[in-house]
């Protein structure tokens, strides 16, 4: 009946799409980042427990091991092009854990490789990780100075 109107009237068309498209995607987005982010943390806990229980590592070494394994997996998946798809699906679920830090290094390294090994790959490796390290290390040094001079 309304077929003609849908095809010719943009206002009616947008009214229809608005009416029949699913409600704003906020809740599904949050849910996706929740379960993927949670699962990445569970994987990290599994690796840490493997380190302490079976490989007889200290707690600190085991948590380093879990960072290293997660970073390795992220580099591999980013290189294969899988991580970008996962990132599109899970949003903050993949970039808030350490996987996001690793992806932020690998992704530009891949992309800017053709601009050279030093100023392309080497420099772009830190285009996002750089600021994270600057402010992370910077604020920890500030805390260390305050702690050493006033609190300890």
């Amino acid at each position, binding site marked *: 009946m309304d077929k003609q109107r849908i095809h010719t009237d943009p206002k009616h068309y947008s009214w229809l799409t608005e009416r029949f498209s699913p409600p704003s995607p906020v809740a599904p987005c949050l849910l996706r980042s929740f379960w993927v982010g949670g699962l990445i943390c569970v994987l990290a806990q599994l690796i840490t427990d493997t380190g302490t229980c079976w490989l007889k590592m200290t707690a600190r070494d085991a948590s380093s091991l879990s960072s290293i394994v997660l970073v390795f997996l992220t580099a591999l998946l980013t290189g294969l092009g899988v991580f970008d798809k996962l990132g599109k699906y899970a949003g903050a679920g993949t970039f*808030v854990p350490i996987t996001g830090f690793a992806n932020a*290094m690998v992704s530009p390294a891949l992309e800017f490789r053709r601009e050279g090994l030093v100023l392309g790959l080497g420099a772009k490796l830190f285009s996002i*990780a750089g600021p994270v390290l600057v402010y992370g290390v910077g604020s*920890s040094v500030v805390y260390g100075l305050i702690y050493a001079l006033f609190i300890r």
Partner: protein
Amino acid sequence: MFDWLMYVKVFLVGGAICTVGELLVIFTKITPARILVCFIITGVVLSAVGLYGPLAAFAGAGATTPLTGFGHALCQGVKHAVEESGLIGAFTGGLSATAGGIAAAVFFGALAGFLFKPHSK
């Protein structure tokens, strides 16, 4: 031997921290890079005032895997190094506590850059 409850806590806390990041993505115009920077500073601050330690004890990797946990590791590393070797620890502690993750990211990042070709998006 296998502690199921711990894994439930890891999942819930880790997921919740990621959801906070997603809320920032959806409701503010902060770019992901800035969110990462905010998270790591938040981690250092929460750890410095003593709030993040109990969370990490409660939720394990659920608290230490997100970037706030990276900040926590930096902060606790600095604290222990200062207790052990004084003022110099403020400079040596942070990076030595997080060396594994950072060196792995540099090494595997460069390696992936050598081995793989960029993907068209």
